[in-house]
């Protein structure tokens, strides 16, 4: 096995933490390292004496007498007050960084995020919709997120950000990427069978490249429709339920779909397979359920542009 298609690895940097790629990452890592060294200190403070005592005070005879000292106010107060002070310091570090990470600057670039089982959809201010997240470098990006079905969670390790995406609630998250890179976005709230496949690619581009990307409707170079359709198929969740090799998954296979001519629906009627049928089935799938399949597909209305649907149709025609 290898990574799911198009998902780049997380950039590693040292033993513990991934590389930093956002403006808040450094502060988060600072808190991490403070906590880390504090933990190391207290760990040895407990474990070294434990091992030392176990060795030097190993029992030599059953009648051995032991120390009568069973408390010491001074030392007990010391080991209560001192850690309390350190913990309050940790809290202060944490809450400061948190405040920074929660409140987006006013000039943020706003992207709407819709999560559904098991794909992500990013809608840009100009209407461009993409299954992958592409953001400009050096500009705060604010994500306004909601879920169509169950709870998901948005996590990009290099940005040090995470936020659950909840149905019936808008949650927000912001970051400012400070280097151009590619990485993986992972869903971190268990959302069902394909939870671990709910990944997508995050790309940070130079502002001018990002502008090009937006102008091309979410690609760097204009792709031919068939190729664009294939990409949408892979990135927008179609592949989870519709196979291209004829195996039956949740929904009908796309193999030989276009040449089949017509489809029998659960209400007994038969429809002709044409552009209108496909369009309708993508935008409002519940209106035309193919006989023998469950009504589980989410509606893509508002999430795909007309060009996207045209591209998908062009690609579907090539599946034989």
């Amino acid at each position, binding site marked *: 096995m290898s990574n799911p298609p198009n998902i780049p690895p997380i950039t590693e940097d040292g033993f513990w933490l991934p590389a930093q790629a956002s403006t808040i990452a450094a502060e988060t890592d600072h808190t991490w390292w403070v906590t880390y060294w504090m933990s190391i200190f207290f760990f040895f403070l407990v474990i070294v004496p434990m091992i030392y*005592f176990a060795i030097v005070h190993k029992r030599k005879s059953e009648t051995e007498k032991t120390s009568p000292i069973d408390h010491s106010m001074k030392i007990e107060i010391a080991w209560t007050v001192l850690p309390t002070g350190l913990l309050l310091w940790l809290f202060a570090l944490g809450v400061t960084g948190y405040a920074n990470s929660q409140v987006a600057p006013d000039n943020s670039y706003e992207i709407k995020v819709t999560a559904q089982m098991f794909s992500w959809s990013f809608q840009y201010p100009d209407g461009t919709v993409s299954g992958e997240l592409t953001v400009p470098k050096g500009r705060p990006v604010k994500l306004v997120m909601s879920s169509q079905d169950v709870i998901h969670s948005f996590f990009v390790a290099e940005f040090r950000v995470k936020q659950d995406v909840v149905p019936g609630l808008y949650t927000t998250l912001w970051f400012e990427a400070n280097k151009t890179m590619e990485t993986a976005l992972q869903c971190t709230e268990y959302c069902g069978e394909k939870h671990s496949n709910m990944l997508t690619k995050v790309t940070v581009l130079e502002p001018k490249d990002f502008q090009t990307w937006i102008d091309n409707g979410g690609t760097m170079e204009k792709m031919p429709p068939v190729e664009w359709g294939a990409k949408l198929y892979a990135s927008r969740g179609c592949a989870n339920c519709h196979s291209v090799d004829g195996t039956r998954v949740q929904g009908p296979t796309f193999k030989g779909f276009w040449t089949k001519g017509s489809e029998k629906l659960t209400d007994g009627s038969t429809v002709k397979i044409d552009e209108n049928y496909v369009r309708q089935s993508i935008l409002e799938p519940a209106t035309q359920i193919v006989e023998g399949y469950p009504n589980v597909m989410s509606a893509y209305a508002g999430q795909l542009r007309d060009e996207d649907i045209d591209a998908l149709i062009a690609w579907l025609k090539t599946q034989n």
Partner: protein
Amino acid sequence: MSRSITAEEVSQIPQSGGTNYINAEQGVWSWLTTVDHKRIALMYLVSTLIAFLMGGFFALLLRFELLHPGKDLLDAKGYNQAFTLHGAVMVFLFVIPSTPAVLGNFLLPIMLGAKDVAFPKLNLLSLYLYWTGALFTLSSLVTSGLDTGWTFYVPFSTAVSDTSVIAVTFGVFILGFSSILTGLNFIVTVHKLRAPGITWYRLPLFCWGIYATSLVQVLATPVLAITLLLLIFEKVAQIGIFNPKLGGDPVLYQHFFWFYSHPAVYIMILPGMAIISDVIAVHSHRRIFGYKAIAFSSVAIALIGFLVWGHHMFTSGQSELASAIFSFLTFFVAIPSGIKVFNWTSTMWRGSIAWNTPMFYGMSFLFLFTIGGLTGLFLGTLNVDLHLHDTYFVVAHFHYVMMGGSVIAFLAGLFHWWPKMTGRMYNDSLGKLSCVIVFIGFNMTFFTQFFLGSRGMPRRYYTYLDQFQPLHAFSTYGSWVLGLGLILGLVTLLASLKSGARAPSNPWGAKSLEWETQSPPITENFKRTPLVTHGPYDYDTTEDK
């Protein structure tokens, strides 16, 4: 002061034959209708160990599956069901009931010098409720399984999952009542059945720990009951309290759930701490350092534990202000835990430390729990938690606390009180060997997961990015070592039943009351109610007081 006691001096020589609670009556029926707390404890022991083996089996399946990305053994559905059942069985059927219902049940009355718990029939009812709850929970194995995670988060569990959610939640609902009744029983027992001379400050610290646990059981578990009831009604009658489509709130479910389940973490760890306090003092033959500090920190943990549940929800969509407050309070629960750890280490100072199985497990606990506790600081710190939340770091953290803490402590307690419970001595070398293997296997399995998580590996993933494969594989190899060690430990104990030497009444030279009666005790625990004139840790010291 010499260790004078008005109850008859029990000789150190092993008793052979004679009646005890095990052979007092014969036949299955005598066990199923018993109200003797010791027999009930033994039945709990067998039941929870079966649950432990099942949970462990699921764990090995999970680890095996994670050897490589993609399918090794299970498909995604099977994996999701395995981790759900691993969590649900371990939490609800093993860790929560294990120490209170097994060791607490067995020892609490004896340590108090009582003949039984306050309500013996209620105690038996708890056991039957446990069995009934377990039956419902495990029924999912033969029906359609369960794939919601042990947390049953809505709306996945209510709107999407087509598995046996109702049966399992109903089972857990019943298990909750078992837990409540056990806690209630113990609280009244500690208040009302202490033998003459056992003042609050002469209680063994085990009793303090169990008492604190019981408080949490009584105060927190009812909220779980109503939560699960609402979940069931959501599924059968679209009640809508947690359903965003109807105006309900899925985050509210998390509040309800964690109001119970965070204190439940203390239901799991407080008894472990209770055991360790006794094990370390007894095997160091030393007065426990900071008795009152340990006793009150147990109660403090139990109470502060109710104020911090929101730290499970820092990324949930909870209000930022609430997160800040919950984070602040979370640090205060770290302090009493820290105090305990310092006191335990100090108890070993100038002690007479026996290198035997219970002490090995006790020191393992100290090592592992310290790591578990300290890594909790990372998760309580708000901005670091944003990075670590729902990653393997969390998995590693709570396994260090639940497994490295509670389970290792349970094993320490089991090895410590095994001679009392069964009247047999086990092979100490084998016991120590099992501890070393468990310790190595545990750290291989779970320490790896800390840096898996900090590098960005999310939890509950069936398949994962290629870069994590070597670490996952190492963790899996560790789980095999861990499994081997645990099996060796159980075999050591079981072998003692067949071939172990008869246990004297006080094999460790301990001072608390349970060691004054014979091993195994008679049904009434003591031939007459003891009058206690000294504390549970009054060991011979270098100076006379």
